[in-house]
């Protein structure tokens, strides 16, 4: 596609950069600079009139919206299209088509995620420069529940700018001032004469007009779409079974590949004992050791490749981790908790004094969670084509076209090929949960593609490779302490968590250069420990990095997924020690946090908190603020005489700021709760002789219809800008369930998973409290 860089985009690389920084600094905030319209100047591309980086129109009125985030089930393509349609003033109907852009433009970057801030909160020249650097890469990724937060303003501005240009084109054609025109339903109207022109008929002309520098946005009172549930644009294709996923990519001449990777991370291929026999199987075209650590089989069909790979007899090198087991890893965590050389993230007030001799009554508790897998429904896969001329193309259900590009370069480099260019096609993903920001499978596919120049190669991991050879959420353990004041509330709170640092592990695998920095003080490790909204007069948060040979990565809600289990279980333990009701106790702690208290009160009302329950049943509550949102949940459980525990229902109240597509937010809360409930009740990876034992859904089970809780969600109205929705729903549910089990049985469970999973027949399971398993 031909593209003209806009003047502002050109400034990025030029000498004018310094001047732009100064101008942004002088303006006091860099906000407008962050959401400007860097990208193509308006132009005609085939039968599309491209008005800006996000909006193109066809003459027949179809509108193509570039949504630079991955659709992984969260409905982001629909939400982003709603923002454009709101300002463009078009109906939300079949005329809209959403694409993930292939070009990686600065304007598509997601600088907010690593900088941990909303675009509108970015202030000052340093933040501006950091954001600019990330944009030039550009860092495009779908992570950290940031998509709506980050694009909430740019997508609307793109729609408003396009509308402005269409109005300008109509004004010129009709010979009237633009101010005399209005728009509605995809038409520009001239009320004085009753004339109207469809957008499609104006689209080509509109490319001749300059985009306005700062188009005005509609006030909330004038919104037609934002805040009103719209049907997901991607669902008709998905219920028809259309091939929208990376695993479904089919190209002329496509080759298929399967892989076997080292059971022990860090081990290399020592010897391939039966290479000749495997090569001789029907349909096998190639056998290759990838990066020393895996063996791939290339064939004319994936079935042929996978069955051949299953026959591979590979000897792996010995490693220092060959004797690691769940027990040794757990011991390392516990040792780290006993070691006082922790990294201090936060200290407020006189924490140590509060725990000194003769101090107030203390509550102390230790908690643990195991390693877990992402288990995305669509197994890891990537398709790469490297042509004879060195140009490369990749198709992947990826959370980041940037890491895709790096992956292609890395994998091709293993084969001694340096791609001249890489075009990245981000497909829809069959679940992602953080797993698909990794570049591993793309690099492997690129290596194979470099050996088969001119033929696209699709590599797909088996489910067994996915569960046991992938990237995991770290295990973690925490020691929490509170000194209770005369009112029974914590006068001091002290949290220490031990886990394997995420950022350094992920960065060391992904970044093209360097080792990813220091693992000490990892920000993901302490997410959910601070509890800033609770009025603790003194608090301290510390962490210890505990290395292991396993690769750990981001996993839907990261540190919150364990720390909120720890902290919200602990708050219940404090309430119990103080002889207070868990809801009333939290309300007292939220005296200076009205937003959080409103969410908590709402969920308590939804669940009928305080209403008596039958024997064997219990109710538990938990709260967290995460990703600029606040979520509270009440879980109801039933524990039978034989120890079977069922999560019957989860009530959820959420304040996620301004809501774009309410039903999609509700769906994310539902999905987050079920993801979190499965994890809380049954998910664990165990390690033996350095390798993950679990391999598929029979031993890494997930809840099914029969044991999934019912869910009721309410989204509270809010005037704040949008917060995250994809991850917060996961966060409180484990603690809510643990607290409910305590209410039902008096047993305090401090380790996940909360239950032992018993298989019924071949596929079904039930959950038994520890100590009840047969």
């Amino acid at each position, binding site marked *: 596609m031909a593209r003209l860089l806009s003047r502002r985009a050109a400034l990025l690389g030029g000498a004018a950069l310094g001047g732009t920084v100064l101008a942004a600094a002088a303006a006091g905030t860099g906000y407008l600079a962050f959401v400007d319209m860097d990208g193509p100047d308006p132009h005609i591309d085939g039968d599309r009139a491209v008005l800006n980086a996000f909006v193109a129109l066809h003459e027949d009125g179809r509108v193509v919206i570039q949504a630079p985030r991955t659709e992984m*089930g*969260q*409905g982001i393509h629909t939400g982003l299209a709603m923002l454009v349609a709101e300002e463009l003033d078009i109906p939300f109907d079949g005329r809209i088509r959403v694409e993930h852009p292939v070009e990686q433009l600065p304007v598509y970057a997601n600088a907010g995620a690593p900088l941990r801030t909303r675009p509108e909160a970015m202030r000052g020249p340093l933040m501006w420069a950091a954001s600019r650097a990330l944009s030039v890469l550009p860092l495009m990724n779908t992570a950290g529940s940031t998509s709506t937060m980050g694009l909430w303003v740019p997508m609307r501005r793109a729609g408003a700018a396009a509308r402005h240009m269409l109005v300008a084109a109509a004004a010129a054609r009709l010979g009237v001032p633009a101010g005399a025109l209005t728009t509605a339903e995809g038409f520009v109207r001239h009320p004085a004469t009753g004339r109207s022109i469809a957008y499609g008929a104006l689209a080509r002309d509109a490319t001749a007009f300059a985009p306005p520098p700062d188009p005005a946005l509609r006030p909330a009172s004038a919104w037609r779409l934002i805040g009103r549930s719209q*049907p*997901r644009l*991607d*669902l*008709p294709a*998905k*219920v*028809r*079974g*259309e*091939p*929208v*996923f990376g*695993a*479904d990519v*089919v190209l002329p001449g496509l080759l298929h590949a399967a892989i076997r990777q080292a059971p022990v991370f860090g081990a290399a291929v020592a010897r391939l004992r039966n290479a000749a026999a495997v090569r001789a199987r029907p349909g096998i075209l190639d056998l290759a050791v990838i990066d020393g650590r895996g063996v791939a089989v290339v064939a004319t*069909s*994936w*079935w042929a490749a*996978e069955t051949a790979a299953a026959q591979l007899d590979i000897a792996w090198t010995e490693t220092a981790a060959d004797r690691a087991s769940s027990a040794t890893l757990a011991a390392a965590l516990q040792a780290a908790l006993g070691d006082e050389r922790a990294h201090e993230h936060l200290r407020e007030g006189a924490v140590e004094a509060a725990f000194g001799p003769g101090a107030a009554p203390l509550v102390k508790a230790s908690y643990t969670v195991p390693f877990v897998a992402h*288990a*995305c*429904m*669509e*197994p890891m896969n990537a398709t790469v084509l490297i042509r004879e001329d060195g140009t490369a193309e990749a198709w992947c259900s990826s959370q980041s076209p940037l890491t895709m590009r790096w992956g292609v370069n890395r994998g091709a480099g293993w084969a001694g090929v340096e791609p001249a260019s890489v075009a990245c096609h981000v497909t*829809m*993903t*069959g*679940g*992602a949960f953080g797993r698909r920001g990794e570049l591993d499978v793309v690099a492997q596919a690129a290596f194979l593609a470099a050996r088969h120049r001119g033929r696209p190669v699709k590599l*797909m991991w*088996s*489910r067994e490779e996915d569960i046991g050879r992938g990237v995991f959420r770290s295990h973690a353990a925490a020691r929490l302490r509170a000194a209770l004041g005369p009112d029974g509330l914590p006068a001091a709170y002290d949290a220490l968590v031990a886990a394997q640092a995420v950022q350094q592990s992920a960065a060391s695998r992904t970044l093209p250069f360097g080792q990813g920095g220091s693992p000490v003080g990892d920000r993901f490790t302490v997410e959910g420990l601070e509890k800033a909204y609770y009025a603790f007069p003194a608090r301290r948060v510390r962490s210890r990095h505990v290395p292991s040979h396993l690769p750990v990565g981001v996993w839907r809600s990261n540190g919150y997924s364990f720390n909120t289990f720890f902290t919200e279980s602990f708050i219940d333990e404090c309430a119990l020690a103080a002889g207070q009701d868990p809801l009333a106790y939290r309300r007292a702690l939220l005296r200076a946090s009205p937003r959080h208290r409103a969410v908590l009160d709402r969920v308590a009302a939804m669940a009928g908190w305080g209403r008596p329950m039958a024997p064997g049943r219990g109710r538990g509550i938990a709260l967290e603020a995460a990703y600029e949102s606040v979520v509270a949940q009440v879980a109801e459980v039933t524990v039978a005489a034989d120890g079977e525990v069922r999560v019957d229902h989860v009530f959820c109240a959420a304040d996620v700021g301004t809501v774009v597509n309410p*039903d*999609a937010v509700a*769906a994310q809360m*539902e*999905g*987050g*709760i*079920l*993801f979190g409930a*499965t994890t809380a009740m049954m998910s664990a990876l165990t390690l033996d002789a350095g390798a993950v034992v679990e391999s*598929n*859904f*029979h031993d890494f089970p*997930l*809840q*099914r*219809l*029969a044991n*999934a809780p*019912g*869910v009721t969600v309410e989204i509270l109205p809010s005037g704040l800008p949008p917060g995250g929705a994809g991850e917060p729903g996961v966060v409180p549910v484990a603690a809510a369930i643990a607290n409910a089990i305590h209410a039902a049985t008096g047993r305090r469970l401090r380790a996940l998973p909360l239950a032992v999973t018993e298989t019924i027949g*071949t*596929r*079904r399971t039930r959950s038994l409290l520890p100590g009840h398993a047969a």
Partner: protein
Amino acid sequence: MISLIVNGRPVRVDAAPDKPLLWVLREELGLLGPKYGCGVAQCGACRVLLDGQSVPSCVTPLAEAAGAAVVTVEGLGGPEDGLSALQQAWIDEQVPQCGFCQPGFLIAATALLARTPRPTDAEIDAFIDNVCRCGTYPRIRRAIHRAAAAPGQG
């Protein structure tokens, strides 16, 4: 050559008799609706109707489908892009998230309604044991009830 009927069309397939039906459909017949999720009859993403029965096609050898009528998610709708009542209910309830598991759920639910036109929650739970990692279960249940109550059903 093995003959079977796929989505109403007779086809002849030149593939090994032990090749799983899933891979015959995906690789030989270009039907990409049935998904590979586990390969061991655990997840249900690959489910198809085999003479009306919902089966995991990842463990169904082609030979077993010889002469049989196979229906994939692509074959559920009526003519001209029409959707079945279940597919429509799936949209009305906005069921799919990522959607990868949904072809298998739609097949399982189709088989359920064929024998139990107005299933209770317990009957739904007893019949369908597919896996959805995104957690669409509450909506799946609602959509099945909606389809069961749709005019012309049951």
